[in-house]
């Protein structure tokens, strides 16, 4: 592939449209081209291509071990694929460390909650703002002027998110003491605090009860709706996925076996087989 080539992607021809509930879906934001990821001899992702459009909710589904989390790890820069290209915002993304990817506006949550257990909820969410905090160490060490002001400004932003996700009562609680469902919400808050263009959610509803799932679904929709954030999520609960997402990618054994609207995917023979456990010959 030629790096200097103009970003002439097929998907650029996709027209903007407005969904039934009034959300605007734009052009391609992230384009993954022929991604292959190996761990030694094991192929986790095998030549997968798909894209994520501006403003949409994109789901990645598949059975256990299908390579979904690896895919998210590729997008967030944690794994470097051996083959393939990642295009983000119309530019080919060179190999870069995860923290630089984060600074490009990609935030995520984790399948096994990865909060900072030694800190309070507030501090955890404040870590999401770290990339907006630029005060030097001298100003910080005397805590005057810019350091103080910066802290206040970012705290305001964080408080808005706390308000948005309705976690006011646990603001000063150490996250270690929180129940599972709330931890998931705090993790979402931390990701939101980074004001991402693209939000990756790795099984945001795993292990939740029905009520918590409803809450979380509402928050995900609200985030997409109020902030216009593009969301890519992995989820096992089919009902939730079909309700939430605009388009769905289906993976199985590291390969893509389906891609389209929830209805299209639902009626895809290969997908049905994968989910019904028909043997792969």
């Amino acid at each position, binding site marked *: 592939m030629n790096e200097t080539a103009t970003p002439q992607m097929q998907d650029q021809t996709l027209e903007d449209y407005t969904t039934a*509930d*009034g959300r605007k879906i734009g052009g391609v934001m992230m384009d993954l081209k022929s991604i292959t990821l190996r761990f030694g001899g094991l192929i986790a992702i095998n030549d997968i291509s798909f894209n994520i459009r501006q403003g949409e909710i994109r789901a990645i589904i598949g059975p256990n071990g299908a390579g979904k989390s690896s895919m998210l790890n590729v997008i967030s820069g944690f794994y470097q694929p051996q083959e393939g290209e990642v295009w983000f915002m119309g530019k080919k993304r060179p190999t870069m460390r995860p923290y630089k990817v984060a600074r490009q506006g990609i935030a995520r949550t984790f399948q096994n909650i990865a909060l900072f257990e030694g800190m309070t909820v*507030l501090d955890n969410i404040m870590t999401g703002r770290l990339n907006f905090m630029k005060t030097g160490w001298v100003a910080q060490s005397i805590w005057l002027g810019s350091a103080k002001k910066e802290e206040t400004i970012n*705290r*305001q932003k964080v*408080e*808005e998110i*706390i*308000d*948005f996700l309705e976690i*006011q*009562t646990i*603001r000063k609680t150490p996250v270690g003491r929180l129940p599972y469902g709330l931890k998931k919400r705090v993790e979402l808050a931390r990701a939101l605090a980074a004001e991402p263009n693209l939000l990756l959610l790795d099984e945001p509803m795993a292990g939740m009860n029905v009520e918590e799932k409803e809450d979380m679904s509402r928050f995900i929709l*609200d985030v997409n*709706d*109020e902030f216009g954030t593009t969301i890519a999520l992995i989820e096992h609960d089919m009902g939730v996925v079909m309700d939430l997402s605009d388009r769905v990618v289906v993976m199985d054994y590291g390969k893509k076996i389906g891609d389209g609207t929830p209805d299209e995917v639902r009626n895809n023979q290969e997908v049905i087989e994968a989910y019904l456990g028909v043997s792969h010959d």
Partner: protein
Amino acid sequence: MTDSNTAVSLPTLLARNVQRRAKAIAYREKEYGIWQTWTWFEAQQEVDALAKGLIALGANRGDYVAIIGRNRPAMYWAGIASQKAGCIPVPLYQDASAEELAYALDHCGARFVIAGDQEQVDKVADVSDELSNLEHVIYLDGRGLRKYDHEQMTAYIDVQKLGREQGDDDELAQRTAELTAQSTCVILYTSGTTSRPKGVVLSNHNVIETAKNSCEFDKLTHKEEILAYLPMAWVGDYIFSMGQALWAGFCVNCPESPDTMQSDLREIGPTYFFAPPQVFESQLTSVMIRMEDASKFKKRMFDHFMKVAKRVGPTLLDGGKVGFKDKLSYQLGKLMVYEPLKDTLGLRRIRVGYTAGEAIGPELFEFYRSLGINLKQLYGQTEATVFITQQKDGAVRADTVGIPSPGVELKIDDNGEVFYRSPGVFVEYYKNAESTASTKAQDGWVATGDAGFIEEDTGQLRIIDRVKDVGKMADNSLFAPKYVENKLKFYPDILESVVFGAERDKCCAFINIDLTSVGNWAERNNVAYASYQELSQHPEVLNIIGRHVSEVNTSIAEDEMLAGCQIHRFLVLHKELDADDGEITRTRKVRRGVIAEKFKDLVDALYDGSSSIYTETEVTYEDGRKGKITATLEIRDATVISREASAA
């Protein structure tokens, strides 16, 4: 110097406060983790912007503006702004159902609704088809409303923006100037224990005079802090957070959310505090529950000092004299228990505290007084702009409700019903001349509907019960159910009780267990239960309740007049009495008639001697669906002290 003669309306009071103390804090609200503050000057800016916005939206003189939402400064400003714009504010209960809202909105013919959030907007939207007058909804919190049709909806801040940019200052000044003492200040809908709500019209004169008198009575100044957490549609909150706050110029603090009320109370530490008995009761219950888990030493210390407090606390509070040793014990208790306890509860700084709405259990009342909290009783009504009687510092008792408030005249008629006449007496029931006439006489005397008498030596009023609820038993002895119920409710395990016995030969009772307290007991004793119903019928729970009932009987038997009200048989209800089912009012008053009707089979079983009864009950779930629950309830006999024995 401006006094009530020139301060003709709430907007003039606001202007006066701005003039006197522009930079003093007028409102605080916990939001985004800290207490956001507004000075009187800033508050007036906000109010003016909204008022001008309302005018720009087309509000006319005399239009009705309904206000529905939780206590927030912006909602209070909405009330003042409506008045400034020449409109009449109508605060409505935020937990009212859509039908209840529809009735009130239709009854007053509101053209504008100012709603707190999506929940309120949804309710209004649900019924808007039936409301021909309703034109525009203004919402405060835009969360989730982005996709709503905005043709007839505007955000609060956008209305203010409209007012700031296109508002007509002259028009606003003109309309505000037209307000007189006699013009309507607010319409408040009574919750109505028996009939449909009635809209009580209060004039500026009513509100301002009452506020002035009551502030002087308790020497309230601009230094007070209050927490506004009671429903805005309730007259009490209107007087405390609007009338008195504007008159005295003190700061109104709004909690972050209903869930955080307790912690916000602690942070603010109000100096002037009002709460109905239920709030004090649930607080006491939680104190007792939390102390259950304390170490042995701490628990013994707590019990010891609470005994000391009970013995000498109230005396000290009333300025009485106690022995040196007791005084020392009390001081030690103050250091070890009372002050820290009051501080944790957020009641430490209270200078003046009131409870009203319902009779408070004497033990409950004494508990708070013994800690050194100046908790007093007042007796009031919406129709009186709250104050009818109240207690003076140093003359506080659990069984009376105080002397007539300044400017109030009292009289008792032959049936024992209490009548009053005062500057606070309401103008009329809106669009209900018939009820107005039956309640308010031509000469200004208003019937309270309560039976009571004035103690000769102290001049304090004593309320027995509702006139229609004080009855006679079959043997013609006095039947005062509320008296007994209050005694029962003092036990943390008992949330609610309903006593029957009018025209019967003995009294029987329904009991509601308190799930928090009993659930806590179950947890500590490893009692497993799957539901409220199962817990309520647990034999051990019934034993506990049985003991409480017997203790209450013993206490009642001490008063010869009421000895007949002892409870002979009781059952524990399988569901909580619920406002959604119409069994209690939104202010948690028992609707005796409704309950007697609905649970007729149970009442009958209490009196026919059967030991258990199978019953089916219709319930309404939170989302409004209806369902049926069935249960077999055990009926127990309680120990009763015979009259001969108590007389002997």
